[in-house]
Structures are given as structure tokens and as C-alpha cells.
């Protein structure tokens, strides 16, 4: 069953950005796997390192969710999904933010429990090339390695997330931030342990976990709100998106329009919904609606499938 209108397509420059974002996510997966291996090899019996390792495994979820989401993203609407597949990214966003939230909560709880129980972490030695080395030094080396890729990749993702207005990518950049922060906390913790401060690790981790839990809560709230068709906002969900107001103003500028109201929601990166328009009179309505539809959909690359609804008054 054919629906009127054309399926949404990213403008060419955004398509490039999307390709770059996908490449970054593949790179993230690749690097995270090497990090998981490096931490796994050095973790020994250390509970703290086990926590870092678990977080690293958790942080695979957002890139996987993003890549799965983008796989469906471009599919044109069909009979089964007449609105298209753009909302797939909202599911990716929800998965990612749940992972971020869980990740933060996990470190917070485990580090506080370790502190309260006064767990003294024991770290053994290992023989490398005939020399006995305290595993703590190797852990620090592995942790320093684990800091670099997420630091670089996360920073590269943020501008792309803004450009593509992709909240799933934004969440993933946040989890990268969490990754490198916990890496640093781990290094500080093990250095502390080496100086005989058994609590160093737990303190460093719990401070950092606050930051991650905060990011996770914000991200999770935003994802749920977006699924509830919240008013559109910027990619960090801090400010209102000005586009609905702009649509309204532009429609009101048309000479046959008395008043207009735009009711828009975010379908992933796309803004869609309807604009209620009160016409001055009923002459030539077919052409007028067509003109208004074009106006409403051309103001921003994200506007798509904005329908004009004629009403006699806004009351």
C-alpha cells in the first residue's frame, strides 16, 4: 500500500557524518575488545579490576545498539511499519542509556560495599621473562591503555552526535567518558594500594561513579521522555529545540494564515508531527495546504512528514 510523500533521507553531508559515526562505533567495538582482553589478562584476583572489566563489557552495549539501530534506520516505510524505521534509534538510545545507568550504579554499589566491608585487595605477582613483577604494575599499564581509546573516540563522537542530532551516539560518547574516568580511577586506586592505602581504590571509584550515575540518569530520563513524545530538545536535552516555534512563525507569515500551532515530536533524529493552521478564508485550499506543507518541511533538514491540519480556530 503506497503512502503519499517520500521516505526520509539524510542530506548528503549528514550521510557522510553518519558513515563516520558508524566507523567510529566499529572502531570502538574493536578497541573495547582489546581492552577487555588486556584487563582480563591482568585482573588476577582483584575485585576492583573485575569491576573495571565488567564495565568494559557493559560499554559494548551502546555501540552495538547504535549499529543495530542504524541498520534499520534507513529502511523506507512499508506495510508493516508505515511510519518507517527512524524510531529504531530511540530503542538504541534507551538500551545505551540503561547500560550507562547500570554501569554507574554497579561501580557505585560495588565500591561502597568494598569500602564498608573494609576489603583489603590482595594483588599477587607474576613471572614475566624470568622476573617477578607485581601484577599491580601490569594492571596500571593495562588501565592506562584502556583510558586512551575511549577518551579519543568519545571526543570524536560528540560533534557528530550534535551534527546528526543522534542521542544514541551522544549516550555512547558519555559511556566512553565513563570508561576513561573509571580507568583513571583504577590507576589511582592501584597506586594507592601500592602505597598501602587499601581504601584508595574504593574512594576513587565511588567518586567517579557519581558522575556516571548522573549522566546515566539524565540520559535515561531523556530517552523515556522522548518515547513519550516529549517536546523536541537539543541533543543533550538541556534546551528546547527552537524548530517547532520556527515552523509556527513561518506558517503565520503566509498571507492566508491567521494563526498556526506546530505540534512536533522527535522520531530519533527526525522531527515530525502536525501543524494546525487557521486559514483566513476557504479559497484555493488545495494549493494553500501544499504550499504550507512545503514550507513546514523545508525549514530544517530534520523536518519530515509534518502534516498541515486546517482548523477553523485554535480553541
Amino acid at each position: 500500500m503506497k503512502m503519499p510523500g517520500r521516505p526520509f533521507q539524510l542530506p548528503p553531508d549528514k550521510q557522510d557524518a553518519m558513515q563516520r559515526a558508524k566507523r567510529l562505533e566499529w572502531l570502538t567495538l574493536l578497541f573495547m575488545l582489546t581492552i577487555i582482553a588486556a584487563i582480563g589478562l591482568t585482573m588476577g584476583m582483584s575485585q576492583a579490576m573485575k569491576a573495571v572489566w565488567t564495565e568494559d563489557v557493559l560499554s559494548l552495549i551502546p555501540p552495538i545498539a547504535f549499529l543495530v539501530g542504524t541498520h534499520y534506520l534507513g529502511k523506507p516505510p512499508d506495510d508493516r511499519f508505515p511510519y518507517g524505521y527512524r524510531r529504531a534509534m530511540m530503542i538504541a538510545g534507551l538500551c545505551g542509556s540503561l547500560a550507562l545507568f547500570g554501569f554507574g550504579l554497579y561501580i557505585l554499589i560495588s565500591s561502597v560495599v568494598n569500602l564498608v566491608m573494609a576489603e583489603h585487595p590482595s594483588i599477587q605477582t607474576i613471572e614475566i621473562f624470568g622476573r617477578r613483577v607485581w601484577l599491580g604494575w601490569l594492571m596500571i599499564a593495562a588501565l592506562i591503555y584502556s583510558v586512551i581509546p575511549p577518551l579519543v573516540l568519545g571526543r570524536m563522537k560528540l560533534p557528530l552526535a550534535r551534527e546528526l542530532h543522534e542521542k544514541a551516539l551522544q549516550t555512547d560518547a558519555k559511556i566512553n567518558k565513563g570508561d576513561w574516568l573509571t580507568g583513571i580511577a583504577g590507576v589511582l586506586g592501584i597506586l594507592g594500594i601500592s602505597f598501602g592505602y587499601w581504601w584508595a581504590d574504593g574512594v576513587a571509584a565511588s567518586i567517579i561513579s557519581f558522575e556516571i550515575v548522573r549522566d546515566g540518569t539524565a540520559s535515561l530520563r531523556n530517552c523515556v521522555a522522548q518515547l513519550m513524545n516529549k517536546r523536541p530538545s537539543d541533543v543533550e536535552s538541556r534546551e528546547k529545540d527552537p524548530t517547532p516555534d520556527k515552523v509556527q512563525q513561518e506558517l503565520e507569515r503566509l498571507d492566508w494564515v491567521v494563526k498556526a500551532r506546530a505540534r512536533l515530536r522527535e522520531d530519533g533524529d527526525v522531527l515530525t508531527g502536525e501543524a494546525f493552521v487557521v486559514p483566513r478564508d476557504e479559497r484555493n485550499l488545495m494549493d494553500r495546504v501544499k504550499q504550507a506543507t512545503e514550507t513546514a518541511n523545508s525549514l530544517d533538514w530534520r523536518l519530515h512528514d509534518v502534516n498541515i491540519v486546517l482548523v477553523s480556530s485554535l480553541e
Partner: protein
Amino acid sequence: MNRAVRLNRLLTILALCASVAGCGSLPRDPEGTLQRVRGGRLRVGLVEHPPWVVRTSGEPAGAEVELVRQFAEQIGTTPEWFWGGEQQHLEALKRFELDLVIGGLTNDTPWSKEVGLTSPYFEDRIVVGVPASMPPLKDVAGAKIAAKRGEVVAAYLEQKGAVPVRVDELSQARGPVAAPDWQLEQLGLTRTNVKLYTEKHVMAVPPGENGWLTQLDDFLGKRRSQVKEALQREEARR
């Protein structure tokens, strides 16, 4: 950008700290065990477990007791021996009332989260051996293999489909025997490729005393090659 630069600097400092520290007296003990023990007394919990720890009418004996004596001498301390059960000793160790517990512990002890364990210093491979006169064992399934009564070896044999013959003394067994490889050697048996399991032996130290643990690990790592002979000596004496 500014933040990235700052972070780089931080990482460099951390790396420097780590490399400097690696050569020095780090890691240290939160509870100062190594410092206290040096020139003082070393409280060792003994759990009877021949040939690792052997109770005699006089001074304790056994492969691990020997190792601890050598270690104590090396770091300049006098061992004080405390006989007792495993749980009792490990609980005391966990609360820093002992400095070391030995008794044939392996690294899969359920206590590994409560106390510190050294890295494995000896691998006990339990395998099947046959008398030299016998043809090599082709198939374990259904084979009658001797194992010490009351020990776990018989269960592993059953798991492999063999028929364990539980005996009191392995030296009296005729035919194939399942035992640690060093013991098979002593019994004059030829080891086969039938491996039952491996036990990685460790000693236990108080939790988080990483300086103490590292010192002991270092010592045990160097004595690795002597353990087998010590075990055989102990076994021969009995």
C-alpha cells in the same frame, strides 16, 4: 583541548610514578606485616596435610614447612608455629592474627576472596602411571586403577570412566596407579598421558598485605624447582 593536554600530563605523571615505584620498596602493606615480621616473629598457622605440612612429635616437618623455614631465615625472622584447623587459621589470618597459613592449600580454595593467596608456586599434576613391565594404557574406560582410599583421586577416575581400586598404600598396588607425578616417579611407575587434574599450590597471607605477599611470592618463585624433591623426601620418610 586544554583538558586533553592536562589529562596527558596527568597520565605521564602517573606512568612515571609507576615506573619509579616499580623499582623501589612498593607495594607496601596497609597493616605493615613485612616490617613487623622482619627481625621479629613470624606467626605461622599450620594445617596438617602430609607431605606439605607434617605433624611430628617434635618440630613440624613437610615441604611447605621447609620452605617457610628458609624464607624466615632469608628475611631474618623467627617462625612461631601454631597447629590448628584450616577454617580456624584462615579466619585468624583474615583478621591479621596470623601472618601466614600453610597446609597444602590450592588456588581454588573458597577462601581466595577473604585472604591473600600467593601465586601458585607448585603444580601438582595427578596422572595415571603404569609399571614399566606393563604395556602403556590405551584406554582408561573400564580399566582398574589404584587410588588412595579416602582421597578425591578415585572420584576423578570414576568421572573418566575408570574403575578405581581404593587402597591404603599405593606402593602395594599392582597395575596402574593414579597419583601426583612426583609420587609415581618415586614408586617407579611410568606416567601415561591420562591426566586427571592439576592442583596449583599456594600459601595464604592476610588480605591486602601486598608487600608481604610480593616478598613471599618472590621467594617461592625462586624455590619452584626444589619443591618436588622436598615432597619426595617427605614421602620417603613416612
